[in-house]
């Protein structure tokens, strides 16, 4: 089944590449998303044709992530046709095909049970997203793409070295190494510590670069700032989560080796540092898309923080992965609409959006409140869970820092968001031809509804899946 989850998007990619019509092609994206959702439904329904290959199959974590990716992708894809219709001046053949490839590779990451394969998939996503960032074809987007590619590739290269180190740790312990997760977990206790430790550090830095943990986050503001809102949503919601999964795989091995504490120390410091950096750069941030990028950095920090605390924190982190991704979808898509209407990302030019684009601006505002952990939205529940986990672990200093940083971030983000939505719009802003349409608003509404739903009620199967995934990460059976 996992294989199908990877192959389906690739087939659609081929189809998209083959499709001649610029107007028909975009509709392949939601179609692929829908198909994927169907497959996932089968999988979750237990009709999944078990693990065909030893190095590509879905454990609970994989199932969780693939399901979430399918949902997110479907909604973003539903936004795509409307968007691409507006950008009819740009050919979208490459865009559609590559987006689908990117999607397939993300599924590959989720399903990969072999560290090498995992790495290949992650690198593949890096390369696939390059053209997406470059969609706008202007100097700024070139620059962003270049930085993204180079920094990403270098980071990933380090991750490869880390993977090799882990492999060598097995080799050195005299185990027949296969880099297959089950084997690694089984023999973890015998792995040679120095290699394992440095391997984890390398992988953490490498995949952390993809995930956008400070100080490896520098590509993020540029990339998210220049990419179309749609791509931003897929990156911030999907790719970062996949990189997170990659880190979790490494963490699993260390946990199995009884080195969880070692890993947690690193994760804790990186997490808090990321939140701090994000807060520092969000204050008085004059560019609302860059601001979203820093918000993404912040939430990556929260994710690893949750893992670092462990226990309920792991559950909270996984839940937060979903909440953050969906909310980021709301934010990036609505920000994209606002960007369309105003043609600027600077808060100096963009004011009074509520009066120009009532719907999009309202969603942007709602997304802001959601992402900053306002009840009754989903992120509130997950952040609350993480916080109580921190307090339960009696890490009061960490809790205080966590809350203080949340205030700083709220100030920074709120300042920018309110500057955008409130106040008096400029003349040419009111004169803009762009208006909220169904295609550009409905997906956002659905995403927001999902975020709200996750805050009010976590369906039984989902919480079960989350619990299992958390078990997998924690390594308890």
């Amino acid at each position, binding site marked *: 089944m996992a294989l199908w989850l990877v192959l389906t998007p690739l087939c659609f990619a081929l189809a998209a590449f083959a499709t001649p019509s610029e107007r028909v092609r975009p509709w392949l994206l939601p179609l692929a998303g829908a198909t994927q959702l169907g497959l996932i439904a089968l999988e979750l329904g237990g009709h999944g044709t078990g693990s065909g290959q030893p190095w590509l199959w879905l454990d609970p974590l994989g199932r969780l992530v693939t399901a979430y990716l399918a949902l997110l992708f479907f909604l973003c894809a539903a936004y795509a046709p409307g968007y691409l219709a507006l950008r009819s001046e740009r050919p979208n053949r490459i865009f559609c095909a590559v987006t689908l490839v990117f999607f397939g590779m993300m599924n590959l990451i989720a399903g990969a049970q072999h560290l090498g*394969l995992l790495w*290949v998939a992650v690198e593949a996503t890096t390369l696939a997203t390059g053209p997406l960032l470059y969609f706008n074809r202007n100097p700024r987007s070139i620059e962003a793409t270049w930085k993204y590619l180079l920094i990403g590739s*270098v980071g990933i290269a380090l991750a490869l070295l880390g993977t090799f180190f882990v492999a*060598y740790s097995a*080799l050195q312990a005299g185990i027949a190494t296969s880099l297959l997760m089950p084997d690694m977990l089984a023999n973890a206790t015998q792995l040679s510590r120095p*290699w394992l430790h440095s391997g984890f550090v390398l992988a953490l830095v490498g995949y952390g670069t993809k995930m956008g943990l400070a100080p490896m986050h520098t590509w993020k503001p*540029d990339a998210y700032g*220049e990419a179309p809102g749609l791509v931003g949503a897929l990156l911030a919601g999907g790719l970062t989560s996949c990189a997170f999964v990659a880190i979790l795989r490494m963490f699993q091995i260390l946990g199995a080796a009884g080195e969880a504490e070692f890993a947690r120390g690193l994760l804790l410091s990186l997490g808090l540092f990321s939140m701090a950096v994000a807060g520092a750069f969000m204050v008085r941030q004059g560019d609302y898309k860059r601001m979203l990028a820093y918000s993404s950095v912040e939430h990556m920090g929260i994710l690893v923080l949750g893992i670092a605390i462990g226990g309920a924190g792991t559950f909270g982190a996984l839940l937060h992965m979903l909440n953050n991704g969906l909310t980021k979808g709301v934010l990036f898509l609505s920000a994209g609409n606002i960007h369309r209407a105003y043609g600027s990302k600077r808060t100096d030019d963009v004011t009074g959006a509520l009066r120009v684009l009532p719907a999009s601006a309202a969603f942007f505002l709602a997304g802001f409140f959601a992402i900053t952990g306002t009840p009754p939205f989903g992120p509130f529940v997950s952040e609350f869970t993480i916080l109580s986990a921190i307090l339960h672990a009696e890490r009061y200093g960490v809790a205080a820092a966590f809350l203080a940083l949340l205030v700083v971030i709220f100030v920074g983000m709120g300042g920018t968001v309110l500057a955008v939505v409130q106040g008096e719009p400029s003349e040419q802003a009111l004169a803009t031809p762009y208006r909220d349409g169904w295609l550009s608003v409905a997906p956002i509404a659905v995403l927001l509804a999902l975020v709200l739903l996750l805050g009010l009620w976590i369906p039984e199967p989902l919480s079960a899946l989350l619990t299992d995934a958390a078990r997998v990460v924690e390594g308890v059976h």
Partner: protein
Amino acid sequence: MIELLDLVLVAVLLQNFLMLGTSRLRAAIQFAGIQGVLVGAALYIAHADAGLRVLALAIATVILKGLVIPSILLRAMRNVSIRREIEPFIGFTTSLILGALATGVSLVFSRSLPLLDEHLEALIVPASFATVLTGFLVLTTRRKAITQVVGYLTLENGIFVFGLTLVEAIPFLVEIGVLLDLFVAVFVMGIIMDHISREFSSLSTEHLTSLRE
């Protein structure tokens, strides 16, 4: 066998120094290419007994790293009429000194790690670390986009060298996947470089600083 392997690895290290020393882009690219050929060869030498699979891998490596990628880079270079790396952030002599320093550090570092006996005296691990560090040095000190790609290649070569120790561990498909990724990466970078040169009529990253806080 070990002696021959070490010989090759020494050649690899040599390429590092040449790369750090040269100011001419074409030369840098060629050194990277030669290094690619060398690591391909090293792969076969290290595991001659492993049979066809390794051979195929080695050949693929040599073709990709030795021929394809350099040609991509040379093409990109031809588009813009630049020949040499103007004044890097760190002078060439300094780079050389740092390179030497890096090599020393990696020797020490690799000694400090618990190695298998067959790797203890072999140069594999130190050479790989040294090459990785060299790649990093090039990446962070050279101004031209193209040189940075060369640095990235060197980095990859270094990691590849480390991979020599665990060819058994890594399935063939993954190895191929790694190579494929590398190829696509350089390919995409090449495209982007084309656009950079078209937009800015130069390949200097100095122009790529408009996105800032």
